[in-house]
């Protein structure tokens, strides 16, 4: 069957089961857009900025576990994708991005809207392609999806010159890929798992550190079986949150910079840390020389390069986590660490994090707790980056895998708007709450038009303190409260803004109105923006300052007001 390059792109996407694409046209993409009406099976969602397309595809991928797809035109369209690609790369999210490129004769001539897109995106993609012939499109797309979703997932970009979209070629979709240098689906080495089991079986104070890998490999039930059998407490990293039910008695919450104190202390005192799909990020470890000094580390990861990257490990198990943990379970002894469990209880008593103080002020922590309660932990919670993100991680309770969608590694402010949009498109059956800061929200609020246009039912909670809150907190703690360039004095009226987009806006200034506003938002069809005017100079506790250790952990000042 002879088809144009543009038709081959669409046919290939259909072969991959793609139903939704986030994109925005431009000159180099016009031939592809010209073929799109022939493919009504593909739902194209027109974004307002390409960063929104990439991040929406990221949210879409995280909400389903499938590959998210976005596309953009050459030059600025493509460079606008870069933040979203970098975000997906850091957090191992499967994405395929397609970009238009200037026509082949113009490449390298600094043509209008020409950028070396494969060059620019090389360090922020798992792989990328520049396709110079229509006959090579289907192979490149096949490989792109394969690479994006297998092994450690990540973003793959396919750059296609404008005249390749119009070139005619025979369309054949390959059944298999030929990538001799890429062997992602390997079973973990049983010998290493046996060593891991020996170490675990002789542990007195073991903990599991569960990361994003548990969710990516759909290993939550294996994690639970392992933890219950061996009676090992489970600590979850920011991206590991929701991989283990937080109502579970062995759930310990998040450690690290803004983790709960008892989890950080438990990590510090552990004699064995079993890391499952986590990467010993600096927000978890702090100062590496003082991180969990008396512990042996067992590291399960699909990416061999993660083993020994930041901490030295006793044994590394490389391969699919689900398979690895399945093999580990029968090798571990029925657990019994009563002294260790008692010690953790003692840590919880001595370091009671997460108490919300009784006050008439509107506290962000209280709002998040209420959203979590009212949605019964069944909603997908999407956050941006900063204080609101840490409070969401701390005060919302997560039970189902994949219900927290947050920008972890890259720390992309503005993630909350398009990612929530993408998550809702992917999972229309789920309630989606976007927890936003007033800073991040304004970075991507242009997507409110996309949300309105496509009637995407996202509920926004802006925790509005008129500050870049986390930066302000650092300025308060480490820069003598010199609030340089963090105070937003010109914020728009977000309720009027909602109205301008034809959405419903609600302002909340009083703690007594929180519950009513959340319920009203949930009962209103379509997107709703709730503007919570929160306490301006509230700080996130506990806090371990960057590069420090457990010895510098700052707990919430307890003397200020009565705990609830």
């Amino acid at each position, binding site marked *: 069957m002879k088809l144009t390059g543009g038709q081959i792109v669409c046919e290939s996407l259909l072969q991959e089961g793609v139903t939704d694409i986030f994109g925005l046209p431009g000159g180099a993409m016009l031939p592809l857009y010209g073929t799109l009406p022939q493919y009504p099976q593909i739902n194209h969602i027109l974004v307002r900025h390409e960063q929104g397309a990439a991040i929406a595809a990221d949210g879409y991928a995280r909400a389903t576990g499938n590959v998210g797809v976005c596309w953009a035109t050459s030059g600025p369209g493509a460079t606008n994708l870069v933040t979203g690609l970098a975000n997906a790369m850091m957090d191992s999210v499967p994405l395929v991005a397609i970009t238009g490129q200037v026509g082949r004769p113009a490449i390298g001539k600094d043509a209008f809207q020409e950028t070396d897109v494969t*060059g620019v995106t090389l360090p922020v993609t*798992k792989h990328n392609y520049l396709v110079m012939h229509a006959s090579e499109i289907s192979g490149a797309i096949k490989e792109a999806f394969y690479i994006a979703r297998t092994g450690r997932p990540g973003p793959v970009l396919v750059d296609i010159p404008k005249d390749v979209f119009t070139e005619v070629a025979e369309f054949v979709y390959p059944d298999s890929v030929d990538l001799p240098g890429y062997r992602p689906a390997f079973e973990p080495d049983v010998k290493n798992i046996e060593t891991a089991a020996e170490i675990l079986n002789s542990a007195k104070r073991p903990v599991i550190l569960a990361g994003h890998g548990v969710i990516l490999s759909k290993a939550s039930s294996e994690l639970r079986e392992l933890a219950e059998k061996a009676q090992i407490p489970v600590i979850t990293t920011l991206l590991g949150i929701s991989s283990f039910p937080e109502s579970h008695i062995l759930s310990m919450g998040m450690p690290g910079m803004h983790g709960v104190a008892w989890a950080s202390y438990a990590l510090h005192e552990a004699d064995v840390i079993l890391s499952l799909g986590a990467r010993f990020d600096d927000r978890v470890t702090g100062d590496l020389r003082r991180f969990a000094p008396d512990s042996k580390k067992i590291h399960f990861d699909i990416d*061999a390069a993660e083993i020994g990257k930041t901490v030295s490990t006793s044994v590394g198990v490389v391969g699919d986590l689900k398979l690895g943990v399945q093999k580990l379970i029968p090798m571990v002894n029925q657990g019994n660490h009563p002294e260790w469990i008692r010690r953790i209880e003692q840590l919880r008593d001595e370091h009671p994090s997460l108490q919300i103080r009784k006050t008439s002020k509107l506290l962000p922590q209280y709002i998040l707790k209420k959203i979590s309660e009212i949605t019964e932990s069944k909603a997908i919670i999407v956050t941006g980056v900063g204080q609101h993100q840490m409070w969401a991680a701390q005060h919302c309770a997560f039970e189902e895998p994949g219900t927290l969608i947050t920008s972890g590694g890259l720390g992309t402010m503005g993630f909350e708007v398009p990612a929530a949009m993408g998550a809702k498109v992917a999972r229309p059956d789920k309630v989606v709450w976007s927890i936003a800061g007033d800073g991040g929200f304004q970075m991507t609020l242009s997507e409110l038009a996309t949300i309105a246009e496509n009637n995407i039912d996202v509920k926004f909670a802006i925790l509005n303190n008129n500050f870049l809150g986390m930066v302000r907190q650092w300025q308060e703690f480490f820069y003598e409260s010199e609030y340089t360039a963090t105070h937003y004095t010109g914020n728009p009226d977000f309720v009027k803004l909602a109205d301008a987009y034809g959405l419903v806006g609600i302002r909340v200034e009083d703690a007594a109105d929180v519950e009513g506003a959340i319920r009203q938002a949930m009962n209103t069809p379509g997107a709703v923006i709730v503007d919570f005017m929160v306490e301006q100079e509230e700080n996130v506790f506990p806090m371990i300052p960057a590069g420090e250790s457990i010895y510098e952990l700052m707990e919430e000042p307890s003397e200020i007001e009565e705990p609830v």
Partner: protein
Amino acid sequence: MANVAHEYTVVALVQDRPGVLNRVSSMFRRRGYNIVSLAVGHSEKVGLSRMTFVVDCDDATIDQVRKQLDKLIEVIEVTDMTELASVTRELALIKVASSPETRSEIIQLVDIFRANIVDVTADSVIIEVTGDENKVDSLLTLLEDFGIVEIMRTGRIAIPRGMATP
């Protein structure tokens, strides 16, 4: 030993595609690994090239170098040659100032090092020398007094001994 810097020789078999050198060198740059030398050429297999890297780093870092290289989709195989029984060579072309008075002395040195003179002009000679870096360095030291005009070195290439070809 863990933190002692050392010169490691790593060989990578890679797909011969546009941009592959860029991917490899970009990975080294971005992660801050220090390449002492890099040599690239076709392998015995059609469509595949071999790259030999000499990297100055410690044990933990070379482990990462190997793994990060292996992660690149177009890199098929990575071998750390440092501890393997192998033959390593470098080729250097050295242009040395010469005059009728010094020429015979230079020829003597070249003979001792089993190097070759591949070009002669009225006031210079070009010497081709092959060997490990020590040999090349030694010859260079001896030639310094005559006046070295220009040096071209290929960087190290390495191949394991016996049939266990990586």
